[in-house]
């Protein structure tokens, strides 16, 4: 789809040059430029520049109340920004109407923080919901697809799970059913809103494994909102940190570990990163001991693939 370059609604310039509309990037599936959003007097997003890598697990971290969920809701079109662009496969989603957004939304799947399962429907009805809404499939075919998905997500052996209502499920089961509902129509991108919040460590690891396996098995691009650093380093391919309304760090786990940004260091210092975080940190110790290298800056129109500091080791 070709389209002219668009000005942001307010006319002010973003922090980074605009990514060009109409151009599908092979590496970056979603490109956000200059995203701003205000709620009353509070400027929640203050010029977000972010790229989501195709086929990878992209993690967005940040403290509580920094606007991570607000950012995610913009990706699904649940919120409209005050300024900025959200390019999905080269198409700017911001100016689209609700009706125009619907075909785009069908390429996304979203797993909500508390699963957001429909209370009045059984597990079978919840998971089948997207198929029933979009296609005219036979009932037995729908049930077969649902059962296959339940098996792949480890719920097939729970007796009678298909006919249970959300209130009868455990927290972990609800998240898996929510994931199944998001996956049933084979989306290109999966969004996870704080998937491990409130879960015990074992359940957290199970959810992390589920996200990782889903990404590997289904080949989807994952965008995960999290403040759980152990999970982040366990499953993340790219990590971005949201702070004070902006993305302040963006890179691979090893690159992020090498950042000298004070807010990130404080975040990491106070977090339990788990063995994967320590492993990433350990890689740094094998490299140059004193040199603090910087992470790659976010890609821009003029430099879509910026290289890291050449003195750094692992990327």
């Amino acid at each position, binding site marked *: 789809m070709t389209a002219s370059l668009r000005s942001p609604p307010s006319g002010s310039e973003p922090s980074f040059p605009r990514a060009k509309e109409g151009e599908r990037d092979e590496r970056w599936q979603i490109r956000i430029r200059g995203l701003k959003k205000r709620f009353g007097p509070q400027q929640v997003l203050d010029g977000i520049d972010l790229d989501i890598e195709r086929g990878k697990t992209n993690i967005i971290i940040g403290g509580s109340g920094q606007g991570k969920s607000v950012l995610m*809701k913009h990706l*699904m*079109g*649940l919120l409209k920004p005050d300024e900025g662009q959200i390019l999905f496969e080269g198409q700017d989603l911001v100016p689209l109407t*609700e009706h125009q*957004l*619907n*075909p785009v*939304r*069908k390429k*996304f*799947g*979203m797993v*909500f*923080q*508390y699963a*957001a*399962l*429909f*209370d009045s429907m059984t597990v079978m009805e919840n998971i089948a*919901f*997207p198929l029933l*809404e*979009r296609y005219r499939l036979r009932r037995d075919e729908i049930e077969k697809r649902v059962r296959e998905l339940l098996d792949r997500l480890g719920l097939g052996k729970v007796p009678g799970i298909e006919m249970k209502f959300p209130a009868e499920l455990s927290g972990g089961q609800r998240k898996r059913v929510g994931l199944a509902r998001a996956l049933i129509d084979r989306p290109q991108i999966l969004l996870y809103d704080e998937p491990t919040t409130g879960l015990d460590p074992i359940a957290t690891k199970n959810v992390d494994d589920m996200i990782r396996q889903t990404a590997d098995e289904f080949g989807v691009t994952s965008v995960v909102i999290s403040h759980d650093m152990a999970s982040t380093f366990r499953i993340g391919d790219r990590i971005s940190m949201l702070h004070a309304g902006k993305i302040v760090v963006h890179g691979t786990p090893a690159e992020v570990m090498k950042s000298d940004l004070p807010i990130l260091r404080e975040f990491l210092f106070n977090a339990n990163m788990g063995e994967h975080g320590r492993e990433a940190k350990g890689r740094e110790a094998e490299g140059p001991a004193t040199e603090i290298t910087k992470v790659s800056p976010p890609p821009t129109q003029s430099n879509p693939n910026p290289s890291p500091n050449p003195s750094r080791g692992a990327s």
Partner: protein
Amino acid sequence: MAEAASAPAPSPPGRVSLAFLGVPVRGFFGFFGDHAILLGRALAGIVRPPFRPRLYLEQMHFVGVGSLPIIILVAFFSGMVSAQQTVRALELFRQERYVGGAVGLSLALELAPVFTALMITARAGSGMATELGSMRITEQIDALTTFAVNPIQYLVTPRVVAAFFMLPVMTMVFNVVGMLGAFLYSVVVKSIDYGAFMEYYRYWTDPSDYFQGCVKASIFGVALAVAACYEGFNVRGGAKEVGLATTSAVVSGSVSVLVLDYFLSDMLATFFPLRS
């Protein structure tokens, strides 16, 4: 609407500032405007595919069939008390025989549609507001949007349509049961002549009276459903806010019914004057 960034300038000497009216006046028009917008979007959902007949039937069952017991109970006693008070008044003139016509007319034109609407507001309206409010705070409405489903078409339209069709049905049930209650009190308790009761009932009431009652009931149904859905849809917060929304839904739905009743009665009386 944007708020003024600075305080309003003081009024010139000798003039009274009306700025204090700004909030309530704007609130009044905002209330009706927001409800009208929601109603418009809900009506648009009727003609736009996909069509989901199952949802309409479910809501008609909830609004209508589910309300039947309370409607029957209220109708029976309303008919009895209406007959009781009418007989008391007519006894002053020794004209108790007119009770069938008087109660029949008041039921058909006013008591049945208004009481039916108030009962269904309390029962179904509160249920709608609570359900939608709970869906809002648990992100189920957002989930619908992520599946490219229009939440107003999916949630509000079936409720509005169900109320539009089921209120007249329930109103007719109210009429029948109310007349039964009036009959039992008048004929069995007060020993008024059965023949006189039925004769004046048939003479004073007309099918157009029941038609007017049903027209009112349909409009009341739309009003209460829109009020309930509006409050539920706009909940922000937690369980407490859902409770407040439910209360607001019942209050605004009931007030809407009573206010509309006056204007509709006036308008319908123009088209259907009472026979002399």
